[in-house]
């Protein structure tokens, strides 16, 4: 007898797109990539995020590297995950982009099925599940790690959440950075960040941290004023997320480089 098609997902997970794929379309679920550790593939590098008065800001440089080659000078690594959160990715680029895309569908799917947004920690836990799924690839394969930031639609609290490959999820205080340039960006954030930054100042700190990372990490690109390539920056507030206008990022980046005397040497 034919009956109405049912999701087949575990009770309580009917609104999960990932659970739906696992049940009905397992071939579409990103599988861990193993046995490729020695093969050069594009890698995405530095992401920074910091809290400011009323929200959180995330910025990513534009370089993807493949061994010592620059694979892309215009890669975008920070994406809106839904209206109240953003995700930045580092690591194996193909895996990272797939993760960000699937995560965005997961959030939208829940919202449409349930008629309401997931809580911020609920979103982070779903992302942690995607991160953990790569664990089999850890020793001899390729992995990607995200950085998640958002504002809880109900409480209005802004949060930055980082992940480790075992699916650990950590709430970061004040600011955080991931990727190959992160040791340098972190030092910069520590010196420049202060509580209660205004949005303009937060933008300056984020771009400055990326410039500092690019100074010392070959895999991170600095602003390229000749070819007009600037970091991708998103803000998230209770009103939703918004991509910071490229002209505004450009003007902040040029100001910082001017102050440091980069073009006069």
């Amino acid at each position: 007898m034919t009956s109405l098609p049912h999701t087949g997902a575990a009770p309580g997970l009917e609104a999960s797109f990932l659970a739906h794929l696992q049940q009905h379309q397992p071939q579409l679920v990103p599988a861990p990539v193993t046995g490729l550790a020695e093969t050069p593939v594009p890698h995405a590098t530095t992401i920074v995020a910091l809290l400011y008065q009323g929200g959180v800001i995330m910025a990513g440089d534009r370089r993807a590297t493949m061994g010592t080659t620059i694979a892309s000078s215009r890669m975008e690594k920070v994406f809106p995950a839904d209206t109240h959160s953003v995700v930045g990715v580092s690591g194996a680029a193909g895996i990272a982009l797939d993760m960000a895309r699937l995560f965005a569908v997961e959030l939208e799917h829940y919202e449409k099925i349930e008629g309401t947004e997931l809580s911020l920690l609920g979103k982070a836990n779903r992302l942690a599940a995607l991160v953990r799924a790569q664990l089999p690839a850890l020793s001899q394969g390729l992995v990607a790690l995200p950085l998640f930031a958002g504002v809880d639609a109900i409480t209005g609290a802004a949060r930055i959440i980082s992940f480790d490959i075992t699916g650990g999820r950590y709430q970061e205080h004040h600011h955080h950075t991931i990727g190959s340039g992160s040791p340098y960006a972190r030092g910069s954030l520590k010196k420049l960040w202060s509580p209660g930054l205004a949005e303009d100042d937060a933008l300056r700190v984020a771009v400055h941290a990326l410039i500092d990372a690019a100074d010392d990490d070959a895999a991170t690109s600095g602003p390229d004023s000749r070819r007009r390539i600037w970091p991708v920056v998103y803000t998230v507030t209770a009103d939703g997320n918004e991509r910071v206008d490229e002209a505004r990022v450009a003007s902040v980046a040029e100001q910082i480089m001017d102050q440091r005397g980069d073009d006069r040497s």
Partner: protein
Amino acid sequence: MNQSFYVSPQQLMKDRADFARQGISRGKPVVLASCAAGIVLVTENSSTSLRKLSEIYDRIGLGAVGRYNEFEALRQNGVRYADTRGYAYDRADVTARGLVSHYAGILGELFLTGAKPLEVEIAVAEVGASLDDDRLYRVSFDGTVTESTPVIVIGGGAEQLQQRLSSEWDSQRPLDDAITAIQSAWTDATGEMAWETAVLDRDRAAVGGRSFRRRTRHGRH
């Protein structure tokens, strides 16, 4: 002793159709209509949490009448269909026509072989770049699909309402006027009615985002 009587296929289908029609005709109508700003979706609904109008995908909306558990299951199934397709191919590759065929398959199959036919009727709309690109479909309980522009009505008393609205529909009307026009044409319109309204916003669809917006509830028209 158990006796089974011969029932002709014609009679069997007719009985099933009558059964489904009865269930559907008890539901309040749902109207989907094209206007310059996008596609408006309007129905009467006293509940603020049990919706009859919903978002399926970027440019696609759904209106449903009939038995709640059945159309809710179809709605969720449609969201899964659209999200899976958009993830496997691209967001631009999810179309109302594909969704309608999917629904027609399920409804047709259940009408013929299910324990009972589904007592639902659904309307699917896709907002396009211009009025000419809008698509409005009705899928009936037996899987029959009809396309109609610029207005489509489903549910109880749908035919009269469809005629009344189609004959004088002005697609160039502003959004609020379009909604008011639909509400005024309601068969048993009274002063105090609870409306559920939504819109597939043409401008938002044009920039490639989710275009479905619920509108704040109107207590009256």
